[in-house]
């Protein structure tokens, strides 16, 4: 699969792999963390696209650009997205 340039608003998860010693007792698990969209936008520009009222309440924000999904862990682990 061709690697596309990551978009920080869409690809919010980062993955890293701590050193795994052969003496470590447990099998290694990739570590991941989220970098939410508030790290990138700066001062919010006017007239950004909005969710509908119905959608906004479900998502917890009026502006899609701030939406940060938090899917179950097993989905996040796969490829960091």
């Amino acid at each position: 699969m061709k690697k596309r340039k990551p978009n920080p608003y869409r690809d919010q998860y980062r993955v890293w792999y701590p050193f795994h010693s052969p003496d470590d007792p447990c099998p290694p698990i990739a570590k991941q963390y989220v970098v939410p969209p508030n790290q990138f936008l700066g001062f919010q520009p006017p007239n950004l696209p909005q969710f509908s009222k119905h959608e906004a309440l479900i998502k917890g924000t009026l502006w899609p650009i701030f939406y940060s999904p938090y899917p179950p862990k097993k989905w996040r682990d796969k490829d960091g997205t």
Partner: protein
Amino acid sequence: MEHEKRRALLRKLQEVDFVLVELNLYLDTHPSDLDALDQYNHCALEREAIRSEYEERYGPLMHFGHSSNRYPCGWNEGPWPWEI
């Protein structure tokens, strides 16, 4: 079912009120955005209509004179928000 109807109307109010919260916080840091101000004032009218419909059916939402009270189904009657 009455419980479902009540929940649906409450949700409508929660939806418009949420937009108002979001616009309010936005306007706190963008006080001169006239489009956002317009939208805020428009939503405030819309919430007023839903509020009065809700209160007519299910009783006052607010105390201290911000809703008119009545008997029965007045302010002091449940269910309370954490009970519904």
